[in-house]
């Protein structure tokens, strides 16, 4: 009995190299891998639900245009999320300070304990408001750390800071959010 060939999933590095060499399918695969998480990240950062798609598309477009800028110190996802943060900041500036955050069209989860669900939803919305109000580095470090589980070294590489500074930003964010969400 012959063993079936093991199909290895190409790494983000390999896909990026393939795209640089002209393989369009590699770009599509990178988008499939990271676009949904990028959308959730931007939403958590305060993007309006109905603008998330446009912001994701812009971030991905920018990322592929300057793919040579990704040298692999941070993961592709962390690097992409940092670009997403820039896109969100630009959107915020374009609106001249009007906040992007919108809390519309959030369906309440249909779970067994409606009261607990409502409380959880309120906490999440309060948290989203709080996250959106944080200084940019605090916000991005907090989200990369809590939602992606990224280490400080990787976060530092993605955001162009030091691991020590990233740790300090995280603790400032936690302290601030504890006060806001309480």
């Amino acid at each position, binding site marked *: 009995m012959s063993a079936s060939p093991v199909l290895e999933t190409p790494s983000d590095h390999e896909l990026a190299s393939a795209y640089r060499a002209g393989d369009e399918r590699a770009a599509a695969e990178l988008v499939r891998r990271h676009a949904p998480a990028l959308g959730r990240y931007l939403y958590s950062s305060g993007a309006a639900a109905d603008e998330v798609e446009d912001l994701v598309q812009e971030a991905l477009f920018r990322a592929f245009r300057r793919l040579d800028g990704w040298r692999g110190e941070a993961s592709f996802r962390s690097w992409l999320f940092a670009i997403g943060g820039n896109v969100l900041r630009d959107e915020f500036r374009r609106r001249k300070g009007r906040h992007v955050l919108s809390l519309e069209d959030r369906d309440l989860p249909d779970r067994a304990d409606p009261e607990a669900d409502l409380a959880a939803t309120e906490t999440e919305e309060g*948290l989203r408001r709080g996250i959106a109000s944080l200084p940019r580095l605090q916000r991005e470090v907090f989200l990369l750390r809590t939602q992606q589980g990224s280490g400080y070294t990787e976060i530092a590489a993605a955001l162009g800071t030091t691991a020590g500074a990233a740790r300090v930003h995280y603790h400032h964010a936690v302290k601030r959010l504890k006060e806001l969400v309480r």
Partner: protein
Amino acid sequence: MSDCERLSDRMPEVALLRAAWSAEEAAHLASCADCRAEWDLVLAAHRLEASGPSVDPATMAAAVQHRLASERMADRRGRWGWALGGLAAAAALALVVGRGPESRQGTAPAVAVTADPLVPLPELEGLETAQLDTLLQALDGPLAGTSAPDSTTADDDVDAELEQLLATWEG
């Protein structure tokens, strides 16, 4: 590093189910209100991530590829535009340079007229009037020995041929 800091560092990993609390950590979490508040925050952030709007990866991939392809085409058009512009400029330059002798024919006398008085000929300054007259007569006279001999003989040949042709017509 304090217990609180250690626990704080481990929270994202445990929230993402990549790790689990040890008995000691769980005991600390149960007794430390500050750590519990942070843990609640991390869990809420995790739930928030899960509750975000969904982005269809296939649609997004198509949209991004379309934008990248459009930009590449625009770049190419831009490059061709520059190349054609450069070619047009080169062609125009070549025309000007190619027509150079013709245009020089028109402009050369004017340049010569204005340039003549500026040419210094100090040798002429020392000559007497008579000597200058002699020199001028020599210049005005036939340039025997200085003209191109080939052109003279060529003219003679042409005259002879014409006479021969007329003779044949006249019979």
